[in-house]
């Protein structure tokens, strides 16, 4: 089978690796900004589909499908983000006579509508948060006519990925927040419909991985805890979830499978729940795609999720059985971002001038970084994922700390130091973090190390002195080259 991977970066590379192992040919699509990217070079064939801006390339449905037809690909894997949750894309793929590696278009449409998904969950017997199944009436000038308990969240009906959410503390700010949320939703998702959801206090985010065959059989691959979030963006995830009773775990798994069955769910999906501090859980949403944090599930189950998806496409049913799925040990993932924690996590750009990657027992690195790569503002700031597996949670934490410590990325600041601080914190080590943890996080030790600054000063002076020229630059853009040449001429 020839498979076009409609994505880029680490996930595209990851999918192509499994394609290779299963003997499938892979086709990469790349933007002009990704000409040198690893995923572009890894695939058997690559098609340039447009300029760097995602809207003109990775999000361009016509070009993606044209690339598949041009190369004779039979199937398309959407990865995560980009077009993976776009029902029009899934439909267009199938209309073109190609296989969409994921759920049916109708399922994607349903899961994309947060209220419809909520309704489906309730009908499948899952607990949902109190509130209306209907979006907030636009014509209702005073939304406070509904009985609302504060604080409350205003969420976009067509939203996702933690975006388009506003927190409202009281009646006074409700109207203004609703208006703001509508504007953001319209801009981000093309739909200004919003709804209200009560805020769950001290919530833990726990999600369950399912795999369905599209004919009513659904496997459960265990849960993940994703409570370490910064502005609703996940930063550290783990499997299994810590401090979860066997009974509650069984209930969450059962609920996810029930929902999957009721939808005759096809391919991979993740059912998200919030757990409150009283041990009650509520369905939040279902994600119809492979997720960023899927490696932690793979590490504890030993199962390649992309392989499971591809086998489903090839054979029409699972090779896997529920009895084969038996998690062992603990896995934790840390997301390495091109963001500067000292500047409020401002996304950064620049060239990777030094790269040393972690390795060793139980360390997995999902990354498309290479020396000399340019990180630009065109795409997400996630540049790599470090995952550690060990026999128990404390060992997994320790191993992840080793992995992050070994990961040297020169040329741009990253959040690695911040991740280390979170892993070191007692609350994280006890497994007691909830989704508000990072809002008020105070590191135990400051990142500032005077001794390191002193050594750098010493070395920098020695460098200047030693050679009377600056250290060899890694050639990147012509601008720097020209600068360096101009400077040497003066000597």
């Amino acid at each position: 089978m020839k498979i076009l991977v409609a994505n880029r970066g680490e996930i595209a590379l990851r999918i192509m690796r499994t394609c290779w192992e299963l003997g499938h040919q892979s086709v990469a699509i790349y933007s002009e900004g990704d000409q040198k990217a690893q995923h572009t070079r890894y695939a058997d064939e690559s098609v340039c589909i447009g300029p760097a801006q995602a809207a003109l390339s990775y999000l361009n449905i016509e070009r993606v499908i044209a690339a598949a037809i041009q190369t004779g690909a039979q199937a398309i894997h959407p990865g995560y983000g980009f077009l993976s949750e776009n029902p029009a894309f899934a439909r267009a793929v199938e209309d073109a006579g190609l296989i969409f590696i994921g759920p049916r278009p109708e399922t994607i449409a349903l899961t994309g509508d947060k209220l419809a998904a909520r309704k489906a969950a309730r009908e499948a017997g899952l607990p949902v948060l109190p509130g209306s199944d209907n979006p907030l009436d636009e014509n209702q000038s005073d939304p406070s006519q509904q009985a609302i308990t504060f604080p409350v969240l205003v969420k976009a009906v067509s939203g996702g990925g933690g975006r388009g959410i506003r927190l409202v503390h009281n009646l006074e700010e409700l109207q203004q927040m609703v208006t703001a949320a509508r504007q953001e939703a319209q801009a981000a998702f093309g739909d200004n419909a919003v709804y209200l959801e009560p805020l769950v206090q001290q919530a833990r985010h726990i999600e369950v991985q399912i795999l369905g065959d599209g004919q009513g059989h659904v496997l459960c691959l265990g849960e993940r805890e994703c409570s370490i979030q910064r502005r609703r963006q996940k930063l550290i995830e783990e499997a299994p979830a810590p401090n979860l009773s066997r009974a509650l775990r069984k209930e969450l798994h059962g609920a996810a499978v029930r929902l999957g069955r009721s939808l005759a769910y096809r391919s991979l999906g993740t059912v998200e729940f919030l757990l409150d501090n009283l041990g009650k859980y509520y369905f939040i949403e279902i994600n119809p795609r492979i997720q960023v944090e899927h490696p932690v599930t793979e590490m504890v189950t030993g199962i390649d999720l992309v392989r499971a998806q591809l086998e489903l496409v090839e054979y029409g049913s699972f090779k896997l059985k529920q009895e084969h799925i038996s998690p062992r040990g603990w896995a934790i993932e840390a997301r390495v971002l091109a963001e500067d924690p000292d500047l409020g996590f401002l996304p950064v750009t620049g060239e990777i001038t030094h790269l040393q990657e972690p390795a060793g027992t139980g360390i997995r690195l999902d990354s498309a970084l290479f020396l000399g790569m340019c990180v630009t503002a065109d795409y997400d700031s996630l540049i790599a994922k470090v995952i550690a597996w060990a026999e128990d949670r404390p060992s997994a934490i320790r191993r992840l700390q080793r992995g992050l410590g070994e990961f040297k990325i020169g040329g741009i600041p990253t959040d690695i130091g911040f991740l280390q601080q979170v892993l070191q914190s007692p609350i994280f080590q006890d497994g007691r973090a909830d989704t508000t943890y990072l809002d008020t996080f105070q590191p135990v030790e400051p990142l500032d190390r005077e001794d390191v600054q002193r050594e750098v000063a010493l070395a920098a002076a020695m460098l200047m002195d030693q050679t009377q020229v600056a250290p060899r630059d890694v050639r990147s853009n012509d601008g720097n080259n020209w600068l360096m040449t101009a400077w040497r001429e003066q000597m």
Partner: protein
Amino acid sequence: MTIYRVSVGNREYQVEVAGNRLRVDGEQIQANLTALNELGLYLLRQGDMLREMHFSNKGTNIFTALAEGRHLVAQVERQNGKARPKNSALSQSDVCAPMPGIVIKAMVQEGDFVEKGQAVVVMESMKMQMELRAPAAGEVTRIFVQPNTQVDKSTVLVKIKA
């Protein structure tokens, strides 16, 4: 022996270098620095202590350094000693890009005399236009500015001989 004033992040140090004999803020130190590759990776040895560091050049005397997982910017200026060659590479009044962005244009030419605080470069970053100013009065010796070029943080844009 040469004396350097080095700023690293929010701290400043005075470093005296005479081969392997060094002084940092007056304190005597023995250290040596070896290149591990041709790509900016070095090993600093102080007695039994080893520290791996990576340096990349961001301007004539500005480096970004990666050490112990910390990303730092170091600026080195020679303070004394050997007579400076006529067009010294080390000037105390370089105008550098404060953040990544696009250089719009230079407002001066090579050979111009500028006052301290005079606007010399216009650049745009994060949807704002800003004027970069001369940190000291002097003669503009080199302009490394091409209109509509993207620059990194700390790139030297204009050299001023104070």
